[in-house]
């Protein structure tokens, strides 16, 4: 992290690494699979996600959609693709 910081990575750099199509989606989290790795939270381009404050039986706090951000998902699916645990996915809202 120290090295990353020294290269002045800021929260402003949370651009997706390629351009998503502008859609809207609903995020689903399978909490029992989530290991609180934070990949989805950290790399969601719209900062839709956060870590919840409750624990799963395995002792992790699963990711969840921030209150008030439910409509902000652009269905880029980066969270779904980057999740190493198949714990999060997006259902695209029908246009």
């Amino acid at each position, binding site marked *: 992290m120290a*090295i990353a910081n020294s290269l002045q990575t800021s929260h402003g750099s949370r651009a997706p690494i390629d351009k998503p199509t502008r859609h809207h989606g609903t995020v689903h989290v399978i909490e029992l699979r989530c290991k609180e790795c934070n990949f989805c939270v950290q790399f969601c381009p719209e900062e839709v996600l956060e870590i919840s404050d409750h624990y799963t039986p395995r002792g992790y706090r699963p990711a969840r959609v921030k209150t008030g951000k439910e409509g902000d998902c652009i269905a880029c699916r980066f969270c779904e693709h980057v999740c190493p645990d198949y714990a999060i996915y997006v259902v695209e809202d029908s246009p």
Partner: protein
Amino acid sequence: MTANAEVALPPELHPYDHLLRSADLPTIWCPGCGIGTAVGALIYGFEQAGVPKEKRVIVGGIGCSSRIVFYAKTDAYHTTHGRTIPFATGLKLCNPSLNVVAFAGDGDLFAIGGNHFIHAARRNMDILVVCINNFNYGMTGGQGGPTTPAGALSTTTPYGNPEFPFNLPNLAWATGATYVARWTTLDVRRLRNTFADVVNRHGFRFVEILTPCPVSFGKTNKIGSGVEEMEYYQALEVLKSRVESTEITKTDIELGKPIVVGTFVDRERETFRERYVRVVAKARGSKS
């Protein structure tokens, strides 16, 4: 947001559940490990490329990466340490209709199995080799290996690694691979597209995936958690869509230095199989 922990989940939720041995989830991988991301990308590649389910074969060796066989629902062979490639070789040769992926870690493929890698590349064996490079032996607790950066700390390089690591794309190129790419798990979309592109191709194809190993490598080297290692990649990644062969030596990985990612090699060469079929024709023709 859906269920909380107490509610029984429907058996299929995630779009990949039918492609996973989902009853065995969650995986054994540590929080912040990127192997699962790579596995998902490979599954996507199979799907996107339209590889029939019964034709998918994954061969793993020993180590964290090889555990793919317990989660991806394909014909799956969990073999011995270092021997993914020769097992895949025999398998592919005897049933060329199968789509065979050797999926293993950096220690498996390049330390104990290094000889097999270079020879399979030399023969242009028809397999896709995926290397999860997390710079150390994760499963056994973080020992140094053939890709541990010079100076990096591990349980067996407590004063900093005195050795130089392999540059894997360079090695693969030099020994004959027809396709070579390097991505990090942060580049998941490019990684997925790469798999979709190469699973159906012929020849010896090699994809290196730089993967966070927070518990062993990341913590020891003050990079931090999985997500912090991802940020480290984000900060240091330099994308080169196509590196000329003369430039491939400049893709070495050093701690704290830029990491070149991209597709480095994409070339045609006759495969072992193609050449052997001619041997058969000659043997049968000349002896009849």
